[in-house]
């Protein structure tokens, strides 16, 4: 067990850089969306507009608040720390014109939500992507 754990750790550690540094934006594989620009991703996730190129309303889904991936994602996306992103949303909450992405409770929740929501768009670690999801945007290294 200990060996496995160690091995896993090692594997995780060895891949860690790749895995942790690789949040990717995904959609339901059934979606018509195949590719999105980083700007599109910014606009959608930060509430500027919620429309996908297909005409569908986009429903962005956030990883749990504490998830490292979430911080990594926003860091990579708009170079902001999670508290900055929170402050951002607190200003907008006042007017009510837009709302922050859907808040998933767990990472798994994210997948659930993504599968259930038409127009859903989320981000996850590259390693988590499977057949159900399609990567529409990867951060360039």
């Amino acid at each position, binding site marked *: 067990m200990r060996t496995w754990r160690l091995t896993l750790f090692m594997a995780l550690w060895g891949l860690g850089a790749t895995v942790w540094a690789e949040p990717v934006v995904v959609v339901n594989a059934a979606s018509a969306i195949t590719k999105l620009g980083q700007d599109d991703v910014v606009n959608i996730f930060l509430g500027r507009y919620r429309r996908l190129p297909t005409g569908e309303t986009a429903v962005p889904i956030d990883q749990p608040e504490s998830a490292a991936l979430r911080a990594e994602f926003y860091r990579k996306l708009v170079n902001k720390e999670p508290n900055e992103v929170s402050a951002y949303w607190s*200003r907008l909450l006042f*007017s009510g*014109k837009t709302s922050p992405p859907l808040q998933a409770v767990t990472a798994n929740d994210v997948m659930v939500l993504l599968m259930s929501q038409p127009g859903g768009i989320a981000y996850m670690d590259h390693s988590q992507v499977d057949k159900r999801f399609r990567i529409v945007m990867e951060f360039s290294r």
Partner: protein
Amino acid sequence: MNPSERAFTGAWRLRGLLVRSTLAVIAASLLAGVLAVAYTAYATSQRAHLASQTRLAELLDTMESTLAVACFVKDQTLARELAQGLLDNSDVLAVSISTEDELLTEKHRGPVTGVPGGASLKRLIYSPFDKQKLVGQIVLTPDPKVINARISEEVWFATIQLSWQLGMVTFAVVLMMLLFIVRPIQAMSDRLHRMDPTAGDRLAIPGRHASTEIGQLVVDINALSDRLTGALAAERQLHLQGEVEEKKFHTIFDNAESGLFLMDNQGGVSSWNPAFASLFGIGQQTPDVVLPALNIKQLPWHSPQQMGELLQNALLQNNAVTQDLQVQMPGSGPSWINMVLRSVGDNLLQGVMHDVSHLKESEASARQLAVTDPLTGLANRQGLQDRLHAHVQEYAAAKKGGFALLLVNLDGFRRINEGMGLPAGDAILQATTRRLCACVNSDDTLARLGADNFGIILNQITQGEAVDRIVSRIVQAIRQPYFVDGSPMSLHASIGVALFPGDGFDVPSLLRQAELAMDSAKSAGGDSHVFFDPLLTEAAEQRRHMESDLRSAIRKQEFVLFYQPVIDLAAQRLCGAEALIRWRHPTRGLVMPDSFIPLAEKTGLVVEIGLLMLEVACQQLATWQSQGLDYTLSLNVSGRQIPEGLPPDKLQEVAQRYGISPSKLALELTEGVMLHDIEKSLSWLNAVHELGFKVYLDDFGTGYSSLSYLKLFPVDTLKVDKSFVLDMRDDSNEYTLVGAIISMGRSLGLDIVAEGVERLSHLTALQRMGCHYVQGYYFSRPVPAEEFDAVVARVTALLAAPKE
């Protein structure tokens, strides 16, 4: 200017100074104020705008992130909230927030009033996530009212402050002007009006101005017053002096005896003095009377051309030019004016003139006198020579014709003059003049050369025959008897003739030739005329030769004395001798005095010879004295030696030198010598006699002996001429005459010496008549000194045993 006017002008001036300076200060202050206010307004406005902008910018800075969010999500509500927040600031008038494609909100405070004046502040808004991405913009319009209110407040404050300051400055300046400039100037002005600088008044320095410019000005004014007063005094002095000088010059000008005038180079006379006016009889020039233009050349000159030349000369020369000019004044005779012209510059000439007519007349008469003989009115020697010169030049120029020069001498005239007195001689000369005049033509020249010498120039004479005729007439005329005091007298003339150009070409030789010819005529006995002959020149040459012979004889001491014994009849012994001169000529042998004494007298050499002989005679006397012989010696004296040639002092000196008594030396003179110039010979004789020398009257009886003169002269002894003695016979007149002379001489207390005793009969007769002394060939002929001893013996023998 009366006082009120002056006061007005003064007040006006002072007010003017104050007003002007005040106005100038106010104007300058206002200008400065306006500029300061304008600058303040401008600066304040700039500052206010800048401050407003700054504030707005700061405001925007605080809201920028929120704005970025609002724009990023195009949230109108948020934008409105933001705009409202901005409008809460009083500086903001309007806010406009827009995204790239839509206006999010636009808000104004109060109603919209046109275009806002102030510059809007526009700021671009970028995405909160991407600073490169523009998401919108906000435009803030500042409220101009707020800015302007702030500006006007500041301007107003600046204006108030400046006005207050300028007012203070103006007041201070005016006050200072009034106190330190206007008042002192006013005081000085008042003082200046009352001040009399010539009386010594001076400005006082206003109080507290001793070291200010006002004080300096007062000092300068006082110094100027001093200088002006001094200059004025000097000027006045000069003026007075000038007036005095001018008066002086005027007096000189007006009272000058000479005519003074000033004229230009054309001869136009500009001013003249009264003497000038009276010289020419023209009007006086006074300041009141303007006379017509006067030209010097138009004055009545005898020769206006001469005047013109003189004027030109004066203009050409630096020195004064002078000339005597003849003037022919209408209505009077010609007169002479001496004119002195001198150029005084500026083409002006100064002239001085005076009447020299009298001078000219005197000159003319002096010239006339110089060539005129006063007694006869004929030309004198100088006149004759002048005429001769003129003739010689005339003939030389014409190269034809000729003239004759005659010299006329009256034979024996001197005797008449001496015997009958000068008035008789003068009368004869005048009569002769008249006769000569009658013999010559009017164009011939007649002259008296002195004494009884006349000169005649006969014109147009080429041949001796013509001269002969005239000379014969003259000889004839002179031969006519002259009447002196009623008694007739006959005279003759000796005439010498020289012809020009035959005999000579120049005046001196003509005169000499005529004289030689005349001498020749005279030598020939007179009463004749002789034409000049070259032989005469030869004779003259001989005389000159002899003269030089005489001179050398004196030098070589060729003259000696021979001695002829004089016998005292009463004492029957030899008592002395007469010294007789001989010339031992080296070639001619012994020369008798007749051959050379006349020439020696003529040339004056006789004086020198006489002195030599005096020495010899005195030496002989000294010799005799030393031999114990008590002889006297008599020495012949020529007329030429008296009185200067043989001065009494000299006689005394020589006698003393040889140690002989003056009484041993007797001086023999003829009557002619004594009577030639009675005054002179008398004083000489008296002097000689006083000294103790004896005086013998020689050749007594041959001249015009006058007994009265005989008494007058201090004569000791008479020497009876040998001609009387030689002719003495018992029955002859001479016998009686000699007797008479001897008795007369005795009665006058004179000793008598009879000369020419050759025979015993003479001796006995003279002894019988009472003659004191005798000399003659009977006893001895004159012998040289060395033979005299032998003569003494012979005389002694003869006296002892007379023989026929």
